[in-house]
């Protein structure tokens, strides 16, 4: 085999002349995590709103929510990011379009990445929230109604508190998917972890060292997030409740 192993490459200075390759990889990880966090906040809030909309008695709210999910679920994430990055600035009125195009990197990549990932993941979160609400017995909503609670009050005090607890496992998968999906943003210039590994590979030709490091980092992040979510699940668990469970989705 004609491959020169050089594990010391991590401590050599990278292409930008200031950081080691190891630092470069961790900077990439930083972008991965911050992108995932911002997109995650959007996804959670929007996804919850959509999930609630799709379970209300209002027919148009249900249809609107379903239309949103169908749109964002049937277009590949990569294509969606291209739409945000290349197409949106051209479709907006001239002033807005120009100010977007004048954004400097990394924000020029970061903002479309966060928006694209956020709205994409919101569709999936809304599926989980909807499933969680529908897993509750009809009697719970009726008990709230019988007490005189209005629709918003029922969602806030009766349905959502239990629904979120039920869907913790699939939400954990969704969080992991979000972190992995940040890698797709490398195609629009975001220098997240996979992009950093790729640039290391391109400059040093130490292919396997670079990708092994990236793989190891993703695995460790995976373990940390899974355990964090498990701790969260335990701390909000309701004593004595063995309720319905909701299955998770694909990747």
């Amino acid at each position, binding site marked *: *085999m*004609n*491959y020169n192993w050089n594990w010391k490459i991590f401590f050599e200075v990278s292409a930008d002349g200031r950081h080691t390759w190891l630092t470069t990889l961790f900077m990439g990880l930083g972008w991965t995590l911050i992108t995932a966090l911002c997109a995650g906040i959007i996804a959670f809030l929007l996804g919850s709103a959509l999930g609630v909309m799709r379970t209300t008695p209002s027919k148009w709210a249900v249809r609107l929510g379903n239309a949103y999910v*169908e*749109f964002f*679920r*049937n*277009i*590949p*994430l*990569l*294509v*969606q990011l*291209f*739409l945000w990055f*290349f*197409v949106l600035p*051209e*479709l907006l009125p*001239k002033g807005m*379009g120009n100010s977007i195009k004048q954004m400097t990197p990394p924000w020029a990549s970061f903002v479309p990445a966060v928006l694209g990932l956020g709205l994409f993941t919101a569709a999936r979160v809304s599926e989980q929230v909807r499933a969680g609400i529908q897993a509750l017995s009809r009697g719970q909503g009726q008990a709230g109604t019988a007490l005189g609670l209005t629709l918003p009050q029922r969602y806030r005090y009766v349905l959502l508190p239990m629904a979120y607890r039920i869907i913790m496992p699939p939400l954990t998968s969704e969080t*992991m998917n979000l972190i*992995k*999906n*940040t*890698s*797709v943003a*490398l*195609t629009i210039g975001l220098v997240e972890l*996979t992009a950093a*590994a*790729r640039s290391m*590979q391109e400059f040093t030709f130490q*292919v*396997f060292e670079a*990708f092994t490091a*990236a*793989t190891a980092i*993703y*695995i460790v992040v*995976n373990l940390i997030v899974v355990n964090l979510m498990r701790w969260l699940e335990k701390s909000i668990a309701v004593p004595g409740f063995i309720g319905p469970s909701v299955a998770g989705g*694909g*990747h």
Partner: protein
Amino acid sequence: MGAFDFGVIERSLGYLFKEGMTFTLTLTGLAAAGGIIFGTLLAMMRLSSHKWLSLPATAYVNLMRSIPLLLVIFWFYFLVPYIGAWIVGATRPIQVGAFASSVITFMMFEAAYYSEIMRAGIQSIPRGQVWAGYAIGLDYWQTMAKVVLPQAFRNMIPILLTQTIILFQDTSLVYVLSITDFLGAASKIAQRDGRLVEMYLFAALVYFLISFALSYVVKLLQQKIAIIR
């Protein structure tokens, strides 16, 4: 920005579909077929009572599910030539070609997800079926092949199809290897003619229509199966 020229779509339809979509669909089909077969094998290994089978299978599935598909694409792109050389005994990495590399990548990656689906499917078949198979004298492999797997497979068809639709969308990621799948073809036209808006909107539309139509078919299938049960 000047006016949009949607005529570029019409002019490039041949290239888009004959080159691009053919690649996408071929890749999807091969990866799905190979992925389901390998995935079923992985599922059986995971459910085996032999630790030397279940542990590597579990490790493999967990690994594939922990890292992004893009990283796996890069891995296989660089790894396969070396593995090929090792198998063939050559001294230098052999040229594999983008198509072969991506087929192997997607087969290996999606197999992890297909294996989880098949594992659930196999576990949902009552143990009594297995005992009945043994009772009439079938061995393990015959019982699996003739009794368990056919039922598990039939039960899981809607979920397997849904995963295949996801696979279909994932193939767009071969873009990073400059491969000419459907998105790659659209992108090439877009950059050559300076028509990014038109081409990317069209690409989004096509992916949407195909995925939406397929998921509708899956929904109908699920309703049909539900009635039969």
